[in-house]
């Protein structure tokens, strides 16, 4: 009997990982060649992964939901020795003794077989407890130029973590490896590998910190995907304004005084004013409350103004949506947005409460930010970011004066929104914020 380590093949084309959806077999099951072991989901689709061998399932290395790297052990199958007629592993790249670059990789990595090795080997091939580097010996992937750089710097490529496709080591990785190792003295002077700089000549590492790697999962993974989708599909333009917030500060004070006078134990922040102003500006600039669909070649102009409010939580960014913001009083907006933010922070918010947004507000002022470049949340067409209101020196009648200033930035989808549209929207928005009484004049 021997163990066959089944490493996850690239079931699509050029994929680096797949998520286990369902196992179709359990440990102890007898299996035959081509029997489906699991459904896995790749970036492209859900596919069945069949077994290459006949045997008994000895170990399944992940649970549904786990991401498995292509080339990582996926299942271990005990095969009887007479049944190991297949598959013949692809022949490993032959080590070329005369190759100065090849010697850069660890010798065992050069000579060890590739992915599907393990047929007919002893049970030790299972290697469950061994480190990853030992279980997956393979030739280090790197371009000739990178190998030359590594050779010049005396770096063993096998010890460098590759960031490229399939773990390919890049020049940057080599330089980063040197930086991480603290041997910044390596510089352009080629170091000799077996003659490391003495402790006296090497500057002491400032602080020893281990590099850690964590899987990209859950909310963080979703945020990452969304950001990439937005950044790569939507051409952003961002415009900035600094608003004299003197009247706004006074207005908020008045509203809070009104609440206190009427015996209500609550206060509002600036947020309800921002939501109200945005809501009115959206009504006059419908392109900012719209969505462009390239595939269907159409533009949807939304009726309701559903304002997404970016909320920072321990797990990452949530964007609950204040539905029909145009129909609420300032205090109503305040109460509703606080309730939504609370539910986001303690993760009791429903997906319904986070859907159907038509425009988003992000408040980077809450952590001290001044100006930023907000990223649009498709299918929305624009987003507003507000900074912290702070006293600044500004020119008033040709003389310097100190005033509370509200900085803001609006990013818009340039496929739909031109610079002139941006000007109109920002003029409306800043006029309302500089003189909040104007908000009373408008339908909301």
């Amino acid at each position: 009997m021997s163990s066959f380590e089944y490493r996850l093949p690239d079931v699509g084309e050029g994929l680096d990982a797949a998520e286990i959806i369902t196992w179709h077999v359990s440990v102890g099951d007898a299996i035959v060649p081509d029997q489906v072991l699991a459904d896995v989901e790749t970036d492209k689709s859900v596919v069945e992964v069949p077994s290459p061998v006949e045997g008994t399932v000895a170990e399944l290395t992940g649970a549904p939901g786990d991401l498995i790297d292509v080339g990582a052990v996926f299942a271990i199958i005990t095969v009887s020795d007479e049944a190991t007629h297949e598959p013949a592993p692809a022949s490993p790249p032959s080590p070329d003794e005369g190759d100065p670059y090849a010697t850069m990789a660890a010798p065992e990595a050069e000579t060890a077989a590739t992915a599907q090795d393990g047929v007919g080997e002893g049970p030790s091939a299972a290697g469950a407890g061994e480190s990853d580097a030992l279980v997956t010996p393979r030739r280090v992937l790197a371009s000739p130029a990178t190998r030359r750089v590594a050779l010049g710097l005396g770096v063993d490529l096998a010890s460098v973590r590759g960031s490229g496709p399939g773990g390919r080591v890049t020049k940057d990785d080599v330089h980063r490896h040197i930086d991480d190792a603290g041997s910044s003295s390596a510089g352009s002077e080629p170091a000799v590998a077996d003659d490391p700089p003495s402790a006296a000549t090497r500057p002491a590492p400032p602080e020893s910190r281990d590099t850690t790697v964590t899987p990209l999962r859950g909310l963080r993974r979703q945020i990452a995907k969304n950001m990439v989708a937005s950044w790569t599909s939507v051409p952003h333009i961002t415009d900035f304004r600094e608003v004299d917030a003197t009247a706004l500060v006074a207005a908020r004070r008045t509203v809070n005084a009104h609440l206190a006078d009427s015996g209500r134990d609550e206060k509002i922040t600036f947020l309800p004013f921002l939501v109200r102003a945005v809501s009115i500006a959206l009504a006059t600039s419908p392109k900012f409350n719209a969505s462009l669909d390239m595939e269907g070649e159409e533009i949807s102009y939304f009726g309701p103004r559903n304002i997404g409010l970016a909320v920072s939580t321990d797990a990452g960014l949530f964007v609950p949506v204040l539905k029909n913001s145009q129909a609420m009083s300032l205090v109503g907006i305040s109460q509703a947005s606080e309730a939504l933010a609370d539910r986001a922070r303690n993760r009791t918010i429903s997906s319904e409460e986070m859907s159907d947004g038509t425009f988003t507000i992000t408040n980077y002022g809450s952590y001290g930010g001044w100006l930023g470049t907000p990223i649009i949340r498709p299918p929305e067409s624009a987003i507003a970011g507000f900074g912290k209101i702070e006293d600044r020196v500004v020119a008033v009648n040709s003389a310097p004066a100190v005033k509370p200033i509200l900085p803001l930035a609006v990013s818009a989808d340039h496929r739909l929104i031109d610079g002139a549209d941006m000007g109109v929207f920002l003029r409306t928005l800043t006029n309302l914020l500089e003189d909040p009484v104007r908000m009373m004049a408008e339908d909301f």
Partner: protein
Amino acid sequence: MLRREILRPDGSISGDSGPVLSIQETLDALERMLLSKRIDERAFSLQRQGRMGTYSAVRGQEASVVGSSLALDPSVDWIVPQYRELPALLRHGLSIEGFLSYWKGNSEAARIPDGVKVLPPQIGLAAQLPHAVGLAWGLQLQGDPGAVMTFIGDGGSSEGDFHESLNLAGVMKAPVVFLLQNNGWAISTPRSKQSAADTFASRGEGYGVPSILVDGNDLFAVSAAAREAVGRAKSGEGPTLIESQTYRLGAHNTADDPSKYVDSGEKLQWEELDPIPRVISYLRARDAITDAEIDDIEARNEAEVARAVDVLDTIGPASAETLFDHVSSTMSIRLRRQRDQILKGASR
């Protein structure tokens, strides 16, 4: 244009058509169709295990491919394939492992054996058609008795090469048969979005190329149409366009997930029209086949595929230098430098 139909989905014969194939020929054809199906299943599984690259299955189109190839004489006629015609190529003399080696990325192992009148697979859409016309025209000029059959799909028929090839073939009366397999899908583009024309066959008229519309899941109708077209080519009457209306029952290839775009109702309808069961029904009705005989065929095919896969597993990746072979007659300095670098082992 009237669609030619002979073998009904229930295995009965429509109208007063006489038999197109003898019982023995029909049994041989069935064996080839079942072999094709088995290779498809196995090749998909091998790809999922990382033992082979991308593969495009024939599944659903067996009558169309096998039926048309039966009109060809492998000793004189040529096949200029696309990439989804495996059983026709096997009949012409290619080995299973040879064909699959192509999909494993080893073009040396996939080399077409000398004497086999088949050109290499063509992935670039419709790019094989100018080759086919040129080859046919050349045969004509040389007084060679052979004809050329080339395959194209509904999607490929929208390419410029398709129209240029039909035009030239019509003008030169080249002995070529354009076998257009309309399988309903160009990857994920449905037939309805491919062309506003009622049929693809109707395109032949514009080029003076006689056209035939045929039920592509009907082994007999396809065979008869192909026989007529090859006969026309060999008698000096020039090209024929055949639209074989069939359906791709599986994925476009191993990298495709049709569940994202294929309407399951439509697929179910076509599964009812599967070309293989109707041949079995036909043979059963004539007491020409038993379940045991079908099992025998399946067992023979299974053994043949297992043998081919054993050989395939011994075929490693292509050597890096083959990337540079058979592309340029004289290599540029830059290309030669790249090859030399690779041969030195700097990178694989």
